[in-house]
């Protein structure tokens, strides 16, 4: 079985554990970069972000100057009497930003959080939806 070097590199990149984000927030504490899937459909974009530990009340989504930013904070801290013995992941918030290429109907953005996965619907503004142009034949 052979694998292209490009694919291997991509895999290594994806296997990286939580990536800290270099951005100053008012709240102190580490912030990580959530893994996302982004898809485009004729009517809308959809973003899915894995943000375990956050719930809907601790998530903020903003669209400003074409930049979509997602922030999530931990909903629950570990219990006070818990002494850590082993830790493979760090606790902290989530943050990521995307520059959107199309115009988005900002007033119709919706989002839901389910089991640590944030799903954002970004409907395209009317003028930017693909239109089918009929070619007239004479």
């Amino acid at each position, binding site marked *: 079985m052979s694998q292209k070097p490009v694919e291997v590199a991509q895999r290594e990149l994806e296997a990286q554990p939580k990536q800290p984000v270099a951005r100053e927030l008012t709240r102190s504490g580490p912030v990580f970069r959530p893994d996302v899937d982004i898809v485009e459909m004729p009517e809308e974009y959809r973003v899915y972000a894995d943000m375990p530990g956050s719930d809907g009340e601790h998530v903020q989504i903003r669209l400003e100057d074409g930049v979509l930013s997602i922030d999530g904070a931990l909903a629950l801290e570990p219990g006070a009497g*818990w002494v850590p013995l082993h830790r493979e992941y760090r606790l902290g918030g989530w943050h990521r930003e995307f520059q959107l290429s199309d115009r988005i109907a900002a007033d119709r953005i919706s989002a839901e959080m389910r089991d640590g996965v944030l799903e954002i619907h970004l409907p395209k503004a009317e003028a930017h939806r693909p239109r089918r142009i009929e070619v007239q034949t004479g």
Partner: protein
Amino acid sequence: MAWVGFSSPSGATPGDLFERLRRELDTLVDQFAVQQPRATSGVEPPLALYESDDAYVLTAELPGLKKEDLELSVEGPRVTLRGERRIQLPADPKLSVHRRERRAGVFRRTVELPAPVDAEKVEALYRNGVLTLRLPKQAQHRPRRIEVQTH
């Protein structure tokens, strides 16, 4: 090389002190080693283990999991998480994928706890994409408080 000029008020020899230093360094190295991020296959959940007086607490980051796709088993000190993460994107024929970073697939992780736990009393909670298992220690492994008698 001689240990000239090296003394300690407690009367410990340089050998003792170095032994203590070595042990402390080992502890320090261990502490840092476990906090090192672990390269996972992307679908294997990262875990954290905590201890309280009467229980171990094992947590796992498992976003977007269906309850029926997770199987837990406890046997003596051994805890196994097994499951499958499924990712379903919209079934739109005109869908184009811009990014695909999340990983779907089958995972299995086994953790050996420092002491056996009471398998009957294990509690599992799945919330906000984090699984939390509370694993009560068996009675004989709990710390006991010993009263000091005074006369």
